[in-house]
């Protein structure tokens, strides 16, 4: 509360400052003139007040500060912002400020000018939207989005313009000097759904993602149409009605295609440029983020220069470059870009709304015509709904999952107009359009109505209609696996039923992308950055290291480091079966702290065995989900253009395919053999609880003979990569970074028994591709197993691995394959 009070004072103070500034400006100008006229200075000035010197930047900075302060004040109390969206409150703050300035100046010295808006305030928002666009969702729904954006906007514009004109003719508006063309012009500028407003309002509502992407995507893509319509009608108005003939109309239509596609293409070009740049910036990582902003801004300006759609250009630039940039740049740069973009976008949005409010407090622009204004509001509302319903009806015939009625309602209601409309309105030429002020006033009222009133109603409406909300809950493991199973299933069924579905195109794109785009646009190191395991290990270790030190410090001194016995005691407490004396002490103790990963305050004390066991379980949890996320096979349909982590699997797609292929062939061979020899299917490892499992691994000497062997062995000729690694964790390919990434392999359970003899070394992937075809070769690999021990200590991705590690030291050298197997092989 104190903060709020202070914030109020700040705000008031800065507002005062602002209104003092402008009269001060005048005064200073005078005094400057005076002082200049005295060309002989009487003495050396110690301090001078040089306002003009800093005027422009000072005002800009001051206004930014004031806008941010408004936001501060507004966000101080969440009770209010829950009911009234922040954007509405910002507009009201703008009203207040505008009022103050008006009172001081009797004129509105500060307004939202189109130049400032279109060149400085809008680009960051658009760039941010493009960069953070959920690509998969976007492109899946692209058809629907385009329909709404293009057809919807044209419909809105035409219907509004014509209806207003009709009403004018009908006399509902009194005497106005507006012709049909001007009505259409007005219609085109007010028809477009505004991305800023949509974001601002929908952000707090959390509707389901399909709905959001449809409205949001529409608001972005309709710029293409808006720009064209506005320019075309503007030109028509200038030409006058007489000169419009078929040619002009056709030219208008062509210009639409040029503007829209040109803008998008330009955006792609800039996006590619950006990717390419980031590919080469290894040595200047510190200013990598700068490239993103600059090139993004340039894409906007270039499109503006060529009279193409600047918003489309900026959006597609961001959409196209996301993936590669995130792969190419180093972590910190990626974070920097994200945060900085959010700062700019948020800041811009705040300023836009504040200035919208301020600009409204201006007597000179207000012309009131009840009929015009009310009819506009009414028609906008009605035609939006009609448009949405009709288009959705058509779309639902083609969509796999139809849009429900409730979603359509929200979509219709979410057709918010915003600052873009205002900017366009102000840009009109008052010589050509006599009633410009009326239009500006109407636009303002429409904007305020949609943002404030509709914004306030949106949240309760969504709740009331029980719109399906975005699921934010963490998926269970089953769900994650099942989702992936579904994807694979669908691909399989499509193949079986001979579909060339959606995914044919995606397939082709993916192949193209992998062949060319990755090569061209991604750093070789990014492409090779395969090792998710290393990432896990790395991250865990980072956290561990931090916690280790903080833990040590919290105990008064880094006694841990100095006192070896303390370390060992600590470990003992953590569970006898799990740890043992490890050669790599620091790594080990750091791993201990990994257990309290979830625990922000390292509350581990030497006594808290329980807690660490819980931590262990949580750790398992973390690992399970993480592992699942990382390692589930992607399948053909996956195109998650999100983060570099996902690249790893995409780049290993070939290997994935290899793996699966080999497994499949192997399985077939088994079943073939079993059919031939009349034997049952290969046995699988029976159920083990964790304890049993540990026990099993601990006396692995007796482990091997326990398993039954089957004809599965013979299939192993296909794939030597399956080798049992009882000795421990995951190979760290980072250690062999410059060799082919060694794929640490694991036996599939149903083949476990077949592989036990073959040792733990996973041959390189090249070897995988050319499998040695005899069991003899496999046996040759066995002795190599011993060498893996040296690397084991570095593997600490998880506890079982650690435990395994211990076992590997205890294990006797692998027993020779039991004779029965030999018999089968020969």
């Amino acid at each position, binding site marked *: 509360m104190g903060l709020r009070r202070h914030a109020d004072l700040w705000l008031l103070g800065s507002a005062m400052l602002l209104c003092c500034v402008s009269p001060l400006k005048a005064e200073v100008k005078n005094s400057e003139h005076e002082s200049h006229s005295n060309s002989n200075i009487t003495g050396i000035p110690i301090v001078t007040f040089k306002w003009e010197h800093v005027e422009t930047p000072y005002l800009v900075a001051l206004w930014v500060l004031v806008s941010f302060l408004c936001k501060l004040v507004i966000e101080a109390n969440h009770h209010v912002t829950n009911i009234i969206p922040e954007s509405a409150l910002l507009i009201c703050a703008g009203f207040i400020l505008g009022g103050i300035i008006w009172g001081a100046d009797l004129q509105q010295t500060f307004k939202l000018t189109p130049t400032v808006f279109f060149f400085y305030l809008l680009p960051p928002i658009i760039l941010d939207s493009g960069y953070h666009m959920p690509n998969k969702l976007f492109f899946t729904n692209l058809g629907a989005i385009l329909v709404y954006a293009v057809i919807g906007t044209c419909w809105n514009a035409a219907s509004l313009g014509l209806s207003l004109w009709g009403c004018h003719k009908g006399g509902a508006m009194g005497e106005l000097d507006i012709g049909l063309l001007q009505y259409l012009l007005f219609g085109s500028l007010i028809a477009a759904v505004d991305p800023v407003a949509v974001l601002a309002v929908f952000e707090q509502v959390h509707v389901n993602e399909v709905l959001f992407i449809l409205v949001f995507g529409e608001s972005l893509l309709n710029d293409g149409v808006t720009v064209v319509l506005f320019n075309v009608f503007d030109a028509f108005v200038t030409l006058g009605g007489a000169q419009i003939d078929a040619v002009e109309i056709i030219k208008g239509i062509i210009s639409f295609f040029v503007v829209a596609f040109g803008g998008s293409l330009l955006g792609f070009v800039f996006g590619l440029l950006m990717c390419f740049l980031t590919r080469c910036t290894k040595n200047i990582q510190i200013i990598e983020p700068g490239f993103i902003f600059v090139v993004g801004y340039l894409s906007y300006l270039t499109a503006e220069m060529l009279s193409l759609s600047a918003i489309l250009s900026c959006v597609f630039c961001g959409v196209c470059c996301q993936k590669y940039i995130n792969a190419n740049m180093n972590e910190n740069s990626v974070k920097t870009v994200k945060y900085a973009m959010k700062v700019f976008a948020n800041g811009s949005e705040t300023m836009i709304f504040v200035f919208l409010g301020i600009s409204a407090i201006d007597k000179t622009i207000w012309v009131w015509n009840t009929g015009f204004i009310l009819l506009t509001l009414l028609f906008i509302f009605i035609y939006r709904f009609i448009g949405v319903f009709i288009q959705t009806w058509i779309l639902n015939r083609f969509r796999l999952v139809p849009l429900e009625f409730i979603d359509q309602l929200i979509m219709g209601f979410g057709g918010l107009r915003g600052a873009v409309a205002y900017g366009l309105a102000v840009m009109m030429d008052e010589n050509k359009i006599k009633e410009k002020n009326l239009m500006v006033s109407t636009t303002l009222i429409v904007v305020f109505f949609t943002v404030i009133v509709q914004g306030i109603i949106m949240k309760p409406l969504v709740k009331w209609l029980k719109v399906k909300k975005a699921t934010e809950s963490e998926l269970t493991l089953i769900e994650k696996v099942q989702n992936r199973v579904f*994807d694979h299933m669908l691909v*399989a*069924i499509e*193949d079986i039923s001979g579909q060339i579905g959606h995914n044919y195109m995606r397939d082709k794109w993916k192949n193209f992308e992998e062949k060319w785009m990755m090569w061209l646009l991604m750093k070789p190191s990014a492409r090779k950055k395969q090792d998710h395991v290393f990432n896990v290990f790395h991250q865990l270790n980072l956290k561990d290291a931090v916690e280790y030190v903080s833990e040590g410090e919290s105990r008064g001194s880094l006694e841990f480091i100095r006192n070896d016995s303390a370390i060992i005691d600590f470990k003992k407490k953590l569970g006898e079966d799990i740890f043992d004396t490890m050669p790599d002490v620091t790594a080990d103790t750091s791993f201990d702290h990994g257990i309290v990963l979830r625990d922000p305050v390292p509350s581990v004390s030497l006594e808290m065995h329980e807690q660490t066991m819980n931590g262990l379980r949580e750790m398992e949890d973390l*690992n399970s989900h993480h592992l699942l996320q990382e390692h589930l*096979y992607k399948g053909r349909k996956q195109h998650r253009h999100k983060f570099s982590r996902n690249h790893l699997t995409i780049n290993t797609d070939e290997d994935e395919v290899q793996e*699966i292929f080999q497994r499949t062939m192997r399985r077939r061979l088994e079943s073939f053999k079993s059919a031939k020899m009349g034997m049952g299917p290969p046995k699988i490892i029976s159920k083990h609880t964790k304890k049993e499992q540990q026990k099993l691994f601990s006396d692995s000497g007796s482990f091997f003979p326990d398993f039954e062997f089957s004809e599965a062995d013979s299939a192993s000729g296909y794939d030597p990569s399956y080798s049992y690694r009882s000795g421990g964790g995951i190979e760290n390919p980072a250690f062999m970074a410059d060799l082919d990434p060694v794929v640490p392999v*694991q036996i599939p*359970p*149903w083949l476990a028994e077949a592989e036990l003899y073959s040792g733990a070394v996973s041959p390189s992937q090249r070897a995988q591709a050319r499998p040695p075809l005899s069991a003899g070769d496999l046996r040759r690999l066995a002795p190599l197993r011993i060498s893996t021990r040296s690397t084991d200590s570095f593997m600490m991705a998880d506890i079982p691995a650690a435990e395994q590690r211990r076992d590997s030291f205890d294990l006797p050298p692998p027993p020779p394959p039991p004779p029965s197997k030999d018999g089968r092989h020969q």
Partner: protein
Amino acid sequence: MGSSSSSLSHIPDGQQLMGETGFSAAHLLRLHERFELLDKDSRGHLRPEDFEEIRELTENPVGGRIIGAFFPPEKETLDFPSFVRILAHFRPTGKNRSRDRTQPEPANSRTGKLKFAFKLYDQDRDGKISRDELLQVLRAMLGLQVTEEQLQSIAERAIQEADLNSDGAISFDEFKKSLEKVDIEHKMSIRFLK
């Protein structure tokens, strides 16, 4: 319509199949073409080897299971009606037409789809997904980088999350419940070309 209904007569029990599965005549014809294409020796029925000819299936981790789903344990051959019945599971869920309770649950309803998915896991058809069965699926779905122990822990965790009556296995109801937030109708439907 005239031509398609006359060619529909090539398909035995065509009308009945249409009613049962909900496929349109055009769909059925197309599927029949596909069936005949897969049936290289024109035997009139399909065998697992015919499916294995489809190259893409070898690259699919659940390919083997899907093939298995077409062929229940006793049968080695697949005739066209069975082929179509399985594929019917993947039809998009239509609006709820009123159907009488006596009719069996349509294959492409949410429950029908879930049953199919469940069967993919439950290979021994005992009505439960045991830990091993889950392990097998996980093994198939996860890359080779995952160690056996990690796999076990994932399977363990997954069962813990889903198993409500703590019997160590996932029954169909538990399976259904754990997937209640998933949009099955969308995720398990493809648009069949006409």
